[in-house]
């Protein structure tokens, strides 16, 4: 372990490693750390872009038909009729809605939480020199970029981007007269291939390249969570690819896989052969869609587990329970998908089955959250920025999880389905849940990636403002949903369903509910402002942040902190530039072990030196 990040190994690198140059070093790199950072930066861009789409939608909901300030003229110029006069037409609103979901899930969160941090951290934590298939890893990133570009281009084609929601239900998705859906499908095939290559690589790496002594029960919890996530991506995505191919055939080759007999479009019998099944699409979509939810959340559990153990200076409470719970979730997540489909009339027996499995899967989720809470007990907690985000993750994810229970029972779901309640529920899981875990991970591993700390003060400002902003945005949606406000309406229901336009109507939306649309729009803008300290902090710290004085600035036990900072190509390189793979001799969380000289004992530290 090098005491400082400065010169010796940098010098040795020059001797033992060829300088790959700009293109091989930064663009077509096969180094897992560079690819991880490429994924991270690209996905952060998409995260901001997806957030921007949402802000435009919230503007339209709060002030239907009013031209968008600042961006309006530009949108009118670039997007044409869909944004004529700078205001957002219902079609454009639908396109933004579909693309917000798609971009956030497939281009922002999953690439960040799985591909970016998984790529950077997993090989380091298991003591590997790189991924098992470095060139496959590069191809995975290239497929991802290609998919992203196709999605972005689709905004500018005639007719605009896909408009049938991120779920792309047929026949709606097939009959909307835009090629955006075709772009969406081709983009999705690229993204699915990307995640397939990534998943194969992650699993093979974890099975094959664990350092000597790194047994399965010595793997850090983060590695376990990524391992299970990779299996979910490997096995759940292909059926969606199959569905995507079939919808593409419907769109391009004129087949009727998802188009029923007698389909009427615009008051005319569609010229199709019929005989297809709209329900089939939903089954195939949600067969991916539900495991995808766990793809979003399991790595977040892993991140929070690592940070909590390090910042409470205690071992994770119930490591084995955590591991078995993650495995149980991974398995169960394949048999809960149809709880998204209670309203399709698929039959009460099938609903009962999926309702039962849905309740069962909440058990391991609760075990994980409980273990993480119990880990705090009696710890000497350090309230730094990564820890604050991790601590906030626990109750925020708790809200998201508990509000999911009424949706898992088919009876209340019939009332709540497709309302703003659902939006609030899953955003609590993903936004102040997974995204907070992501922020925690960025603040936590930034010193290892760059050799510099991010600014703590700006970090804390970012945290508190984000925490407030997230709750101001999503809490009102529970209220709106329970009062019956349906999602996917471009004016938030003001024109057709408000009490103002339907005086005295039973169940119409009251003035308060419509006013909440404006409130949420303000809150969302506040949330955007809350990200400004983060963006400043991120770029400023790259060059001007406080330098790390140790390779292990947090005093952590896992192996990624036992490399030089930032880790060179080959990771575990000694002062002479030779690769010196570590040997794990103990479990991942030996914090505050009585009798040890320090309050942390790294996994590769052989015998504790007597104080």
């Amino acid at each position, binding site marked *: 372990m090098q005491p400082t990040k400065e010169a010796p190994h940098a010098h040795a690198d020059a001797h033992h*490693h060829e300088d790959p140059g700009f293109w091989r070093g930064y663009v077509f790199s096969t180094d897992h750390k560079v690819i991880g950072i490429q994924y991270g930066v690209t996905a952060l861009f998409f995260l901001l872009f997806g957030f921007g789409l949402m802000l435009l939608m919230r503007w339209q909901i709060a002030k239907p038909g009013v031209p968008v300030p600042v961006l309006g003229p530009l949108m009118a110029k670039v997007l044409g009729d869909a944004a004529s006069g700078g205001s957002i037409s219902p079609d454009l609103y639908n396109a933004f809605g579909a693309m917000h979901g798609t971009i956030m899930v497939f281009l922002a969160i999953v690439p960040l939480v799985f591909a970016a941090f998984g790529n950077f951290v997993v090989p380091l934590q298991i003591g590997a*020199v*790189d*991924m*098992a*298939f*470095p060139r*496959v890893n590069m191809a995975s990133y290239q497929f991802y970029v290609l998919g992203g570009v196709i999605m972005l281009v689709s905004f500018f084609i005639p007719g605009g981007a896909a408009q049938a929601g991120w779920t792309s239900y047929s026949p709606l998705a097939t009959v909307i007269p835009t090629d955006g859906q075709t772009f969406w499908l081709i983009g999705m095939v690229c993204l699915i291939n990307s995640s*397939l290559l990534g*998943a*194969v*690589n992650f*699993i*093979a790496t974890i*099975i*094959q*390249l664990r350092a000597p002594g790194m047994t399965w029960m010595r793997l850090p919890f983060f590695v376990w969570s990524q391992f299970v996530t990779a299996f979910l991506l*490997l*096995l*759940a*995505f*292909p*059926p*969606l*690819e*199959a*569905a995507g*191919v*079939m919808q593409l*055939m419907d769109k391009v*080759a*004129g*087949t*009727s*896989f998802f188009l029923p*007999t007698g389909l009427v479009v615009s008051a005319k*019998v569609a*010229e*199709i*052969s*019929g*005989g*297809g*099944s709209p329900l*089939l699409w939903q*089954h*195939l979509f949600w*067969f991916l869609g539900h495991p995808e939810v766990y793809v979003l959340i399991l790595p977040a559990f892993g991140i929070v587990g690592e940070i909590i153990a390090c910042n409470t200076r205690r071992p994770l409470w119930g490591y084995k329970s955590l591991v078995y719970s993650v495995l149980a979730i991974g398995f169960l997540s394949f048999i809960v998908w149809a709880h998204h489909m209670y309203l399709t009339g698929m039959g009460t027996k099938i609903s009962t089955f999926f309702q039962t499995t849905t309740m069962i899967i909440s058990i391991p989720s609760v075990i994980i959250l409980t273990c993480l809470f119990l880990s705090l007990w009696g710890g000497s907690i350090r309230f730094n920025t990564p820890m604050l985000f991790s601590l906030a993750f626990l109750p925020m994810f708790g809200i998201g999880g508990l509000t999911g229970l009424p949706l898992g029972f088919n009876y209340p779901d019939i009332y709540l389905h497709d309302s703003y309640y659902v939006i609030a529920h899953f955003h609590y899981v993903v936004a102040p849940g997974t995204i907070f875990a992501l922020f925690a991970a960025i603040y936590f591993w930034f010193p290892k990636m760059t050799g510099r700390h991010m600014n703590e003060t700006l970090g804390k400002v970012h945290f508190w403002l984000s925490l407030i902003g997230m709750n101001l945005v999503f809490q009102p949606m529970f209220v709106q949903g329970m009062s019956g406000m349906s999602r996917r309406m471009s004016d938030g229901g003001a024109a057709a369903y408000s009490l103002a336009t339907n005086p005295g109507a039973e169940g119409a939306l009251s003035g308060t509910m419509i006013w909440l649309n404006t409130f949420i729009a303000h809150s969302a803008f506040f949330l955007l402002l809350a990200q400004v300290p983060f963006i400043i902090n991120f770029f400023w710290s790259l060059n001007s942040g406080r330098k790390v004085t140790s390779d292990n600035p947090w005093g952590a036990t896992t192996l990624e902190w036992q490399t030089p900072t930032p880790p060179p*190509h*080959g990771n575990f390189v000694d002062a002479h530039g030779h*690769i010196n793979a570590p040997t794990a001799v103990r479990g991942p969380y030996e914090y505050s072990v009585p009798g040890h000289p320090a309050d942390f004992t790294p996994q590769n530290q052989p015998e504790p030196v007597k104080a």
Partner: protein
Amino acid sequence: MDIPYTVKPREDTGLFNAKVGIWLFLASEVMLFGGLFSSYILLRVGAEDGSWPHGWLNVPLGTANTIVLIVSSVTVVMAWASLKMNQFSKFKLYQGLTVLCALIFLVIKTFEYNDKFTHYAVLQKDGSYVDGHLVTKKMNAAGTVLESITLHGMQTKDINQIVDPHKHRKEKHEHKEFTIAGTNIVRFADVAKVGQRIAFRPVPSMKDAAGNTLMIGNRAPRYNTYTAIYFTLTGLHALHVLGGAIVIGFLWGPGAAMWRTEPERFTNRVEVSGLFWHFVDLVWIFLFPVLYLL
């Protein structure tokens, strides 16, 4: 920098990296084709009675293709075994035979596909169908209006004889050329009026003078759900055959240079590509009975 276990197996797993990788990849492929096979089951179970075609595919050709693939899965193993026994020239022979089998398979498939794309059905105004292969068609000078279409096949009033030729194979029909004037063909919008249900999707390019789509369909994927799933499944499988042929062909040709420098790694490559090839064969072993026989 070298990645460990690229050539030699790791002791505790007994596998080299690429072998783990290919098995994981194949697991994912099982889910891909599994999704499509499940869709096949759901679509077939959900089809209206008497609307799922039967006996449309050429069983002798399908059987021939099955045999070709089974032979190739023998040769692909022999190629790997030859390397293990250090017989490089035998490897070249068997590897070449595998590629040849792949190409024969694709050529036969092309003939089968072509047969479907030239097989038409026309619904005439007297309520009868003409079903047969395209001989010629006449469009007007602008190429927008269909004047007449000539098919070589049979005429019947019973749609079931077209949907299930296997069941009606004992009924004799006169096979000859029929020339049908465009004006004698039912418009899509009037299908219900002649007492027929929409049995297939018409080709949009064949219209009458008023721009109405006429009930002329060829057995392309659009024709009905059966041809749709048939083309999707076999098309995706054919892409796998093509991909496998390219990889195996590469290892037979330029890729074989590695045998001189790193024989063990090269043998591993051949083994991994062989595992993929077996999977491709296995998919066909399911496809053949499901699409041709059931």
